[in-house]
């Protein structure tokens, strides 16, 4: 499929946004949805809806099969050993909260250390923060270097005999740095430390293989993968899911409930309390099929080419300063423009139909390190083209003109 054809699969691009063609450069925030995903939600609600895993009528059984089918698709997509290592959550945020909460409860004690990096999104810091108060743990941040990278050596330097878990991003949503997560995991495991990877930006853009990565936990955000909102995935090695306590209590996650006690259900039900985001899970199956149809390797290749092109274009623009020059870079272009605040950039670009994000991108620790309160960020998806980046540059020149 050519990119032109791929773009046609996304109905949002058929509409004018404030009389402009949409130049969508905010996929790191959330991606647009292909028609197949939108249709799947509609079809499920109109023709197939029922709750899953409970009733035994026809629709309930069919819906359960569809729901479990997505679990298998995800398992294959990330090459997990067992489909029960895939837990659906309400988002990657909940996936990380789940681990912080249950792992923290069982394995962390006063004085223990959690190692994060300065690159982390708030969703991979704030959930751990609560353990400072409840458990008296210490949170350490492996430093970002001037390129916006966190190296293996820096991680190693920060590991002590108190380090109990390492939680790191796969791909920074600000600097675009792709961390050496496989090497970090290997190093951590040599010291018996489990590793959680925040894969929000990794999963939509990079080929994943849990057997090769060997990490203990991997958090995924489905709405960044051309899928519906309200859905995330926690991959966890089976031994952890079996060993850790349940996270939330409710229907669906129990085995037997009596007045004097409760026994909990088998995996993956143990971690899926209450009625789940059923339609979203089923529709997410279509997102995976959509990605598989194009091929994640092709998506990565396309996005890497565009990132290089985008950097070239922006480097030629003397007023633009790119943020981060990591060794291995994902499809994120963060920048500042001389004399123009990122929010003003975003408003002016919006007038041309160019959608970017401005602000701290939920990474205030990182921005503090940069000495900036805000940056502008153009982030790419499978539907973007070189023309989009040319339009970005042209609109940036318009900003300069207004503020000259």
């Amino acid at each position: 499929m050519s990119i032109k054809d791929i773009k046609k699969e996304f109905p949002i691009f058929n509409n004018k946004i404030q009389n402009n063609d949409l130049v969508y450069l905010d996929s790191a925030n959330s991606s647009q949805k292909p028609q197949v995903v939108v249709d799947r939600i509609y079809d499920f609600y109109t023709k197939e809806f029922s709750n899953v895993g409970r009733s035994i009528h026809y629709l309930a059984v069919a819906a359960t099969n569809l729901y479990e089918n997505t679990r298998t698709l995800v398992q294959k997509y990330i090459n997990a050993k067992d489909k029960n290592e895939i837990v659906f959550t309400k988002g990657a945020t909940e996936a990380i909260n789940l681990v912080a909460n249950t792992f923290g409860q069982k394995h962390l004690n006063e004085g223990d250390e959690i190692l994060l990096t300065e690159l982390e999104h708030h969703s991979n810091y704030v959930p751990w923060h609560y353990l400072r108060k409840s458990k008296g743990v210490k949170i350490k941040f492996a430093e970002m270097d001037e390129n916006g990278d966190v190296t293996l050596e820096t991680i190693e330097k920060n590991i002590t005999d108190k380090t109990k878990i390492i939680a790191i991003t796969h791909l920074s949503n600000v600097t675009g740095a792709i961390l050496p997560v496989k090497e970090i995991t290997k190093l951590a495991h040599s010291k018996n430390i489990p590793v959680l990877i925040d894969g929000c930006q990794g999963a939509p853009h990079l080929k994943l293989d849990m057997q090769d990565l060997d990490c203990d936990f991997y958090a995924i955000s489905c709405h960044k993968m051309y899928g519906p909102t309200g859905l995330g995935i926690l991959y966890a090695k089976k031994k952890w899911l079996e060993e850790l306590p349940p996270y939330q209590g409710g229907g669906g996650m129990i085995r037997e409930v009596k007045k004097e006690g409760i026994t909990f259900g088998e995996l993956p039900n143990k971690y899926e309390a209450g009625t789940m985001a059923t339609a979203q899970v089923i529709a997410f199956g279509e997102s995976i099929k959509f990605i598989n149809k194009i091929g994640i390797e092709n998506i990565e290749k396309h996005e890497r080419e565009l990132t290089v092109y985008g950097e070239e274009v922006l480097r030629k623009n003397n007023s633009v300063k790119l943020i981060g020059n990591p060794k291995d870079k994902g499809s994120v272009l963060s920048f500042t423009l001389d004399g123009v605040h990122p929010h003003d950039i975003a408003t002016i670009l919006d007038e041309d139909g160019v959608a970017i994000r401005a602000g701290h991108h939920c990474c205030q620790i990182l921005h503090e390190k940069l000495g900036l309160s805000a940056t502008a960020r153009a982030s790419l998806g499978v539907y973007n083209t070189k023309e989009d980046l040319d339009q970005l540059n042209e609109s940036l020149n318009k900003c300069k003109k207004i503020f000259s």
Partner: protein
Amino acid sequence: MDLKELYQEIILEHGKNPRNLGKFENFNKDAEGYNPLCGDKVHVYLKLNENKEIEDISFEGHGCAISMASASIMTELMKDKKNPEVKEILNDFLGMIKQSPELKSQLIKEDEKTKLMSLSGVKQYPMRVKCATIAWHALASAMNYKKDENDNEKFI
């Protein structure tokens, strides 16, 4: 929507060369306005005398052209104003930014109205309203004004 309406000459000029920028020595009231959406901060400093008159006012902060210009114009306008007047002008401005097509307060001179009205373009940009009001909310806290329970953009 029209960018020229949002980024009027007055705003661009005040944004680039904000008046009353920087903390002064003998302030006796201060408060910080913060926009969690973008991380922008505006800190307002006041010297309020016994007659509750603003003898001096300044601000520190970093932010977009709109927030800097708004803080700059506000500090110019509020200097030498007394307490009940300050509240009246503040409410009039916030009312205008939120909905009212014009400024009603008799306390604001025509040339001052022109400056304040240059910020009215943000009405069409709901995500930017906070930028225009951040300094004004900081001033309200520094003055110890309480928010109207029924109207977040009004002080009593």
